[in-house]
């Protein structure tokens, strides 16, 4: 029986000719990653199994959640992984100043490429599927075991195939497409499964769009999201990595639980309302409601803190002023992106408009620090989760949106359509 892209990667890493959905396997790992929340917790567990990590080039630590450290406890946690990385001679430890949000750093630094089998102790590790890798989030014990042995157990997933066609409209990007899809299938619509993205519409999505979409596969419950590799992927890998990669294509007779067609031309700017990423409403539905006044806007994170995201937001904010009732935080995902923003004059655009421009960090995305919300406040955020209390007080509300919707809303003071900034104000 034919295999999906994911199944082929898993079979290759388990040393098997073929695997089938439901099969339990142990697979070899190419990258094992942890951050400043999951890493420190993994170290004592790792010490029970091994003195050394299985491969100093394949174990990666990125302090990003509570960094620059917000308090003494988080400073202790960062110290623990810093000292561990040093003692083990790890090639890839990203200290503040060279760092940023893990899921932006790893592709940018060329650590992850097509065909790899990757685990990270962070649920959005599924992001690297944009490059045609199998990549999934696991917990602390799994990551400790992965660091000790270079292996992990997996139940081979079945898959849903998404056939993308058409070209998205000018104000529609990967974020709108993935919220649209999660709205369709639900937050457990792909539970335990792979989401495999194929079709000629993919050529009309930038690599940044694909990272955004693969990033949110977990919000549909998926084990992983994966894109077929095309010329853009190859160009991206050539520009960022010297690693060898392998391109896997699904077999013609691969079995899918479902095949869903998405015409990108029909996707509208789409917002996920509190408290689930699947509460999708098109901007037209939002415009038909009473204006939803907001207190904060966050543009950044592993979902939408990349260069093209910030360019899209800046294009809307250029020469405009943020509404007086709104606080705006722009957080580039990496130092490289930060520098590029300076080079392209984006920082001036943001600051002149009245935005705070911050150092790369997860920051407000999970209510850690920098932009925590008070009771009753509403935020339009380009992040990936709008759960109860995610960004602060349990009575605060998060609306997930694209950088363009976020920027338009920052100017309007309510959730606004980027196609007509300034209307209704």
């Amino acid at each position: 029986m034919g295999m999906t892209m994911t199944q082929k990667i898993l079979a290759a890493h388990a040393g098997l000719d073929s695997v089938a959905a439901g099969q339990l396997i142990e697979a070899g790992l190419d990258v094992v990653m942890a951050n400043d929340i999951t890493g420190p917790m993994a170290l004592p567990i790792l010490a029970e199994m091994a003195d050394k990590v299985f491969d100093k080039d394949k174990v990666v630590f990125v302090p990003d959640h509570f960094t620059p450290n917000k308090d003494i406890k988080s400073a202790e946690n960062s110290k623990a992984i810093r000292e561990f990385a040093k003692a083990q001679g790890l090639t890839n430890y990203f200290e503040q100043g060279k760092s940023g949000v893990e899921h932006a750093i790893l592709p940018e630094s060329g650590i992850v490429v097509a065909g790899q089998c990757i685990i990270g102790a962070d649920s959005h590790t599924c992001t690297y599927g944009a490059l045609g890798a199998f990549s999934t989030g696991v917990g602390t014990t799994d990551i400790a075991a992965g660091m000790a042995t270079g292996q992990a157990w997996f139940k081979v997933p079945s898959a849903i195939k998404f056939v993308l066609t058409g070209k998205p409209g000018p104000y529609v990007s990967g974020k709108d497409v993935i919220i649209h899809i999660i709205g369709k299938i639900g937050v457990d619509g792909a539970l335990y499964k792979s989401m495999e993205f194929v079709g000629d519409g993919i050529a009309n999505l930038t690599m940044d769009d694909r990272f955004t979409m693969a990033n949110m596969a977990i919000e549909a419950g998926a084990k992983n999201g994966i894109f077929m590799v095309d010329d853009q992927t190859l160009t991206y890998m050539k520009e960022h990595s010297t690693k060898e990669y392998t391109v896997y294509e699904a077999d013609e007779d691969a079995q899918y639980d479902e095949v869903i067609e998405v015409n990108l031309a029909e996707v509208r700017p789409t917002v996920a309302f509190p408290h689930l990423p699947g509460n999708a409403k098109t901007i037209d539905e939002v415009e038909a409601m009473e204006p939803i006044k907001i207190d904060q806007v966050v543009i950044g994170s592993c979902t939408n803190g990349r260069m093209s995201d910030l360019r899209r937001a800046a294009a809307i904010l250029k020469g405009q002023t943020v509404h007086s009732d709104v606080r705006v935080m722009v957080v580039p995902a990496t130092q490289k992106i930060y520098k590029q923003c300076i080079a392209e004059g984006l920082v001036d655009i943001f600051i002149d408009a009245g935005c705070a421009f911050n150092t790369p960090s997860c920051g407000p995305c999970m209510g850690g620090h920098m932009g925590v919300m008070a009771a009753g406040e509403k935020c339009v955020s380009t992040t990936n989760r709008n759960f109860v209390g995610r960004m602060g007080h349990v009575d605060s509300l998060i609306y997930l949106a694209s950088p363009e919707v976020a920027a338009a809303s920052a100017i309007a003071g309510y959730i606004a359509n980027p196609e007509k900034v300034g209307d209704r104000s």
Partner: protein
Amino acid sequence: MKAIGHVFKYGDNVDTDVIIPARYLNSFDAQELASHAMVDIDPEFASKVQQGDLIVANKNFGCGSSREHAPLCLKTAGVSCIIAETFARIFYRNAINIGLPIIECPEAAQNIEAGDEVEVDFDSGKIYNRTKGTEFQGQAFPEFMQKIIKAEGLVNYINNK
């Protein structure tokens, strides 16, 4: 092995941000985490839960982040077993890896109510609602996972290999 206790009941999509909010994640002390368990969905949970109690929930329990702090804080708080219609996948593997038994059984999840006294037999997968006198057959763990649970977690399983 059996779990016997009273039930805390929750609905669909209980996420890891309400099981243990990120603001407490600068610590991984299990006792401290346990004292904040479920605070954003059920502020009284941590003070009311007794050793051996069970959580019963509907669909997609544990969705969201990969934080192992979530099953760990529930286990440390005294939860002996979680029954749900379905679990989010990372929560599912984390629970197994730390040796917290979890069972998928939609019928039981729908029948059992808050406060019911419930008994679970891990060997047979049978779930008995003592309060209502009803019985359900839960999904048994595959053999590979049983080995991990018998070894009391992935760490011992690997060390024994």
